[in-house]
């Protein structure tokens, strides 16, 4: 690929999604973007770059960004954050929110929905304790295509084995042909919508728990700080933020404090001052 074309695509993708592509990722760019050229009947990436330059076609630029930003997703990814959520955080919230009996959880950059559905299955498993409670689980991702997939709740045999215990598969999935679909009782617990972490989150509300895992590493430091800043505005003062394993407070905005380092759980500093 010509350096000019690479720069054009990289700039476009960065502006729209925050994803930073480096020169050594031209292979990734080619493998993800060639299918888009075929959709638009373009002969090559060079032609597609030319089309972007001359037309600035909104749909084309959207599709290019989407193709670059689809990420792998696993059920119960890394396991221990979800165990921590179930065994420590959820019992704490059951006490703290006893009066309003309402929890709001956000899976930010949710990809095909595995994280949001994992949380929904955990909550379903705790339905005795959550009797009379309202639990909103919101999943957002900037990719329209991936949100449609997440909503469908349909997964391949490969996907339902990555991280998912067979007990949950038996309990919460139905087989349809060679695919597995998550049951309605779980799908109804999750609302998916398009949403870009770089933009105003709109009327998304405030959250007790935010999961924003395996996405911030795609951003440059400035963008990462900006996104975390915005997330802090939609967290309740004592809300919790789950980041990727290994993430520390270094490079995080000052008002974040570590709550449980082994699972990269963070809270807001102001909550400590208020107490």
């Amino acid at each position, binding site marked *: 690929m010509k350096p000019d074309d690479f720069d054009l695509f990289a700039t476009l993708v960065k502006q729209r999604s925050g994803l930073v592509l480096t020169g050594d990722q031209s292979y990734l760019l080619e493998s993800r973007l060639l299918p888009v050229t075929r959709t638009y009947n373009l002969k090559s990436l060079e032609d597609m770059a030319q089309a972007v330059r001359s037309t600035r076609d909104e749909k084309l630029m959207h599709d290019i960004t989407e193709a670059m930003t689809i990420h792998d997703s*696993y059920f*119960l990814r*890394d*396991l*221990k954050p979800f165990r921590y959520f179930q065994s420590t955080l959820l019992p704490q919230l059951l006490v703290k929110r006893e009066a309003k009996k309402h929890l709001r959880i956000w899976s930010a950059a949710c990809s095909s929905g595995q994280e949001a559905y994992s949380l929904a299955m955990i909550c379903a498993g705790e339905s005795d304790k959550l009797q009379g409670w309202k639990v909103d689980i919101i999943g957002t991702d900037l990719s329209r295509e991936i949100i449609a997939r997440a909503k469908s709740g349909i997964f391949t*045999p*490969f996907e339902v*084995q*990555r*991280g998912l*215990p*067979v*007990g949950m*598969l*038996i309990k919460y999935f*139905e*087989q349809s042909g060679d695919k597995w679909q998550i049951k309605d009782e779980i799908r109804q617990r999750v609302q998916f919508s398009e949403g870009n972490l770089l933009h105003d989150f709109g009327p998304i509300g405030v959250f007790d728990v935010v999961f924003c895992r395996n996405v911030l590493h795609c951003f440059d430091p400035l963008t990462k700080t900006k996104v975390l800043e915005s997330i802090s505005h939609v967290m309740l003062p004592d809300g919790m933020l789950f980041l990727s394993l290994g993430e520390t407070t270094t490079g995080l905005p000052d008002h974040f404090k570590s709550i449980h380092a082994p699972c990269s759980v963070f809270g807001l500093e102001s909550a400590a001052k208020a107490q």
Partner: protein
Amino acid sequence: MRTCLLVDDSRVIRKVSRQIFESIGFVCEEAENGKTALETCKTKLPDFILLDWNMPVMNGIEFIKALRQMPDGKNPVIVFCSVENDMNHIRAAIEAGANEYIMKPFDADIIRGKLGLLDLIEA
């Protein structure tokens, strides 16, 4: 050192899974059907068993039922690993005493994930 018994009539599958389990730190033994696996278990019970379903002489379900009846036969963690990938087979395997189920084809990620769920390795 944790021990693992790989039970599959396919030598290729045994070889592939052996590489994965050895890389995780298991000492592996192999058996090509349920009967030889049962004989191995009578000598010494492994910590973990990866078990195919369809095998000549004695299949996986017959093996697991027999093993779970043996003294201490409930101790080994058993993960079925089979091309039978419909809900009925999966339920039957769990009811017969399997701890987890893997649908073929599988990869190292799936095995590691299942071992993590079973607390045999850190997830």
